[in-house]
């Protein structure tokens, strides 16, 4: 990991943050907004996560990030700056299809050069090494914290902590946190047996250095590309005639109507695919503070018939089933049994007015 010389302002800030970490006192880090440094004393899950979140938002950094699940691995380059309270970020994929994600404040532009398409998202999703937003104190009631020791990641000594799930409804996590800055350098999702299911990690990191604005500019000129916005409208499931019972500890984050482009009906008998149309889908989102589950309700029969379908990608499970004339799809980073129980809980009710 590259760091500025200790004699510079950023270096003094890092030393100050380290001193504060050792004494357990709160302090300001080198960058404009104070970053709480993790203390060496006891911290609960919410406190660790808030520290990680603050560091990811307010530090300048760039580096290579590798995501891995089994033999599936992807490398990306990230540049992140926080100047004057505005977060700017550029993530460029290094393998597979070229894609780029340019974030300025709360807006993210997703560049798909093969399609010459820009998808604009008004709600900036947190990108590793950032995590959830917001982190509620409730998360500490579902996970125990175990300090494991220290280990090097991307050339930096890290504090290793585990968030151990208190029940089988959720996965556990192992986190590598750089103690001076509070930045998360590696994370693993842990199965019930403690084995890692997937991980995402820095393999090289430049932390606390000034970011050249040129590093944050898009790689491609997007003039003439198709621009797509992904709007969503708030709604209430009950007024739409649906009820979902979430597992213990999961609370509702959002209920929205989304617009999807896709095949609106089953293929014709001769196999001809149905025409691509825009369709509305209900999405309800639940979270326990760390894991999130989305329930999608499509008011049309699925193309998979009346049976159920399951799929896993990393720690994310998808379960699809028919409820009356609608297709219910549950997607979330929870064990399959949890996703299944949520899918099974979806029921039609008389619409509330």
């Amino acid at each position, binding site marked *: 990991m*590259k760091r500025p010389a200790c004699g510079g302002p950023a270096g003094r800030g890092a030393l100050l943050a380290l001193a504060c970490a050792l004494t357990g006192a709160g302090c300001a880090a080198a960058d404009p907004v104070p970053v709480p440094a993790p203390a060496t004393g006891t911290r609960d899950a919410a406190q660790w996560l808030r520290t990680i979140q603050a560091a990811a938002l307010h530090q300048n950094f760039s580096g*290579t*990030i*590798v995501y*891995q*699940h*089994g*033999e*599936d*691995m*992807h*490398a990306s*380059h990230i540049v992140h700056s926080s100047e004057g309270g505005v977060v700017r970020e550029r993530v*460029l*994929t*290094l*393998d*597979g*299809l070229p*894609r780029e994600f340019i974030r300025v404040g709360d807006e993210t532009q997703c560049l*798909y050069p093969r399609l010459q398409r820009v998808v604009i998202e008004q709600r900036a*999703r*947190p*990108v*590793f090494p*950032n*995590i*959830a*937003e917001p982190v509620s104190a409730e998360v500490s009631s579902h996970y125990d914290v175990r300090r*494991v*020791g220290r*280990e090097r*990641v991307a050339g930096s000594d890290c504090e290793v902590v585990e968030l151990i799930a208190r029940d089988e409804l959720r996965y556990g996590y192992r986190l590598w946190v750089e103690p001076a800055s509070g930045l*998360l350098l590696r994370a693993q*999702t842990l199965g019930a047996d*403690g*084995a*890692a299911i*997937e991980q995402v990690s820095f*393999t090289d990191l430049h932390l606390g250095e000034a970011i050249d604005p040129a590093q944050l500019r898009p790689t491609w000129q997007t003039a003439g590309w198709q621009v797509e916005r992904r709007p*969503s409208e708030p709604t209430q499931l009950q007024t739409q005639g649906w009820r979902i019972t979430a597992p213990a500890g999961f609370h509702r*984050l959002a209920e929205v109507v989304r617009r999807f*482009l896709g095949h609106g009906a089953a293929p014709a008998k001769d196999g001809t695919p149905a025409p691509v149309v825009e369709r509305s889908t209900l999405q309800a*989102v639940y979270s326990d*503070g*760390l894991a*999130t589950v*989305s329930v*999608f309700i499509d008011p049309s029969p699925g193309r*998979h018939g009346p049976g159920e*379908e399951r*799929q*896993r*990608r990393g720690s*994310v499970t*998808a379960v699809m089933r028919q409820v009356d004339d609608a297709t219910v*799809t549950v*997607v*979330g*980073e929870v064990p399959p049994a949890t996703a299944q129980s949520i899918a099974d809980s979806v029921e039609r009710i008389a619409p509330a007015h």
Partner: protein
Amino acid sequence: MNSASKLRSPAQSGDPCCREELLSGWLDGEAHPHECSAMLDELLAGEALRRKAAEWSICGDALRSHETVTDPSPGHSRRVCERIARALEAEPALLAPSALQPRHMARRIAGGLAIAAAVAVLAVVVVPQVRTNAGQAVVAASGGARPATLVAGTAPGAARARAARSPDGEAPDPSLDPYFLAHGNYASGVMPAAAVYLRHGPDDR
């Protein structure tokens, strides 16, 4: 791997070996900013170089941490261990110098013997340990972490990353992609924040 002073712009070098040297420096964070930019251009233009960057990144990570991630599919650990073993076997043990001046010969032979002895010791001590670790595919994380079942990354040139597959070996159902994408918009937590690195996009098909 390489010092920054040895690095040149990738465009200045059409030699694949030199390009790999530059890539190595870039992955080690030893490249100058203008070299980083040029290397990114090279990576965008060349799939083979991108693949190599990914392999080296994960390999370096695996070697540094002795830890990667479980794939529950049958035979996964064995396949990866075999790839690492093949890569180690393919590594040249010692490269012979091409043209030595006679008057330096004796000194270089002595030096070469010393290096060869050192390489032999390393070959006996290090390689079997690497193979043992990879073969066992289980390494305790340092500092008292729980033992994790591990799958090492690939050595340079040993193998390619495969397409994402579900644990039962089935290819992902692309009709679910919009749901994974839409979930990622609202997901919060540790791993959902890695969703952007998972490559679910409208250009998947």
